[in-house]
């Protein structure tokens, strides 16, 4: 007999939750692969969508920034400034959207097979990373076109990429778990994505907010509570360096929120996941 031993009892939390998650990485990969395959089989221009979507958002945000005369630092073309924010925002938006809907979208799996449920949101994040790779290419092309070479700060970029993913996962896990019980949360997702685009520094930059004396402090604080603020400020910093210095109090507030949401999201998800199959 093998040494595989499982004890099932009410509310027992697997001591090996995270190693279990690691053991199921094969399934994680397959689910992400499935989503990508299906997407490209169902759409006739397949891969092109991964290019068109960020390009459209980019143009719109560029236009809005230009229309309202959002500040642009010396020597940085507006289009680059906006592109540096559109990319992480797109990553966040698609990862958040995917994660939040992942349980409902795979309810047949949830009720028929065992696996650590977190596999599902994780796999949707993998899918959005592929989109992100395409969008990143656009950014590279734009930077080459404007002959803008980043400094050594570019080495920090992966850190902020990870942060964008964690921000999406934290919120996504929360909504995913809530979505199982209260389907109303499905309607919150598009709202967050749409509304978020306007309160996140995509068309403008954080210095427009923090540097504006006519904005009350409390609003500045609320603005900084958005976990994506730190991500985007970080992105711009790693691409444009000293041209766009980080506003530290705001950055730290935003970072704290990101970590807080992640911890709460993971905890809430783990606390409720045992009951998913009962009610989904």
């Amino acid at each position: 007999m093998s040494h595989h031993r499982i004890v099932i009892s009410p509310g027992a939390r697997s001591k090996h939750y995270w190693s279990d998650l690691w053991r199921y990485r094969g399934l994680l990969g397959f689910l992400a692969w499935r989503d990508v395959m299906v997407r490209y089989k169902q759409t006739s221009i397949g891969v092109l969508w991964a290019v068109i979507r960020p390009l459209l958002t980019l143009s719109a945000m560029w236009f809005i920034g230009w229309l309202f005369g959002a500040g642009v630092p010396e020597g940085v073309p507006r289009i680059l400034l906006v592109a540096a924010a559109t990319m992480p925002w797109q990553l966040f938006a698609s990862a958040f959207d995917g994660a939040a809907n992942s349980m409902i979208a795979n309810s047949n799996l949830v009720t028929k097979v065992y696996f650590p449920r977190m596999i599902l949101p994780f796999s949707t994040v993998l899918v959005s990373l592929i989109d992100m790779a395409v969008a990143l290419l656009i950014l590279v092309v734009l930077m080459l076109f404007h002959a803008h070479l980043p400094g050594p700060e570019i080495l920090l970029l992966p850190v902020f990429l990870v942060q964008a993913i964690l921000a999406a996962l934290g919120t996504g896990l929360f909504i995913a778990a809530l979505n199982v019980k209260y389907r109303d949360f499905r309607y919150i997702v598009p709202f967050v994505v749409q509304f978020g685009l306007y309160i996140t520094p995509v068309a403008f930059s954080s210095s427009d907010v923090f540097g504006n004396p006519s904005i009350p402090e409390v609003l500045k604080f609320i603005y900084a509570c958005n976990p994506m603020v730190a991500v985007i400020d970080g992105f711009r910093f790693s691409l444009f360096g000293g041209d766009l210095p980080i506003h530290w109090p705001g950055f730290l507030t935003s970072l704290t929120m990101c970590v807080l949401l992640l911890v709460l999201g993971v905890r809430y998800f783990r606390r409720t996941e045992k009951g998913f199959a009962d009610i989904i």
Partner: protein
Amino acid sequence: MGSAIITAEGLGKKFVLQAQRERYTALRDVLGKKARNLLGGGGGQASTNEFWALKDLSFTVQEGDRVGIVGRNGAGKSTLLKVLSRIVDPTEGRVEINGRLASLLEVGTGFHPELSGRENIFLNGSILGMSRAEIRARFDEIVAFAEVERFLDTPVKRYSSGMYVRLAFAVAAHLEPEILIVDEVLAVGDAEFQRKCIGKMKEVSSGGRTVLFVSHNMAAVQNLCNTAMYLSHGQLVSQGPTDQVVAEYLRAADGSNGSELASRNDRQGNGAIRFTQLALCDGQGRSIAAAQTGADLRMDLHFSAGHGPLRNLHVAMGIDDVYGQRILHLSNETTGQIFDVADGSSRVSIHMPRCPLLPGSYGFTLFSTVNGEMADYLLNAGTFHVESGDYFGTGRLPAGDQGSFITDHRFTLS
């Protein structure tokens, strides 16, 4: 003798039945309560919306056992398998499992219609817990078992439903866990395929693997399993050698004889009539508990009907053997008796001179139409029992496993 591979102690699972959520729940509840009080039902206790699908279940399964799990619809069989598979969390109790467990609760879980057969084999295999290397190693076997070589690169949405099921079962059949859990998957596919599946499952289990197998097909259970468990209302009624347990299950199903059809709510039809009871009577019209082979039998189908005449009343009764196979269909349409009845009827009787059914349990399904519209349809309405009797006046009947029927016949020698 193997050692215990699954040990369950006091297992229970409670579901909270959720009412349809609406926006003004609180307000509606308050108003509802007021209305109830006004109508005089005030003292009545609000019905709890909790429900124990499994209760106080303790059992052990030995290594290498092939366990059949039987029970009526809603007995909790699937819920038990889900608890063992860690899909749902038990509410109380404890289970210890000593081995790698794979479960097949549905054929083709996670199949995606847009993906090709080849892609789905990998996806489904991985969902069922196989590693990429394992799937690759068994790929050819799976394809050969499913007989879909030519369609490997066709999206499965273009498969016939038979091909789809074959492919899905093939993947699952090539799992190699120490414990295999299978829920009612043989209900699909044609007879040929079912035979192949049972063969494959036998092969799997003869390799010393432990199998838990839920089915309503008693022949399959008896064929495949060496022990069985009988669940009823979430509780374990008996566990032991398959034949004993199956016999007990079939006997207990008799409980519905001459009974509770009125309270059944799994019926279809417009309700112009509703069957309330099947009662068995002998040739003199005396009520009997079981029919007897060779004795005159009258089956009284009691029904309730609204007022007014029943135009063109058509009543049919299907009789099934213990394996769920339809063996008889009795209908006033085929006998050419058309009923146009006035107000006040409440019983249709089927007279069967010299009952030709051999001793055993039989299930029955009831169907009726009034004026061409389905009035009442009760699938698997219940069972009745036939006792041994003297058909030929010789005191002899064929042995128990020699069919379900007897009929008048004569031998000559020339």
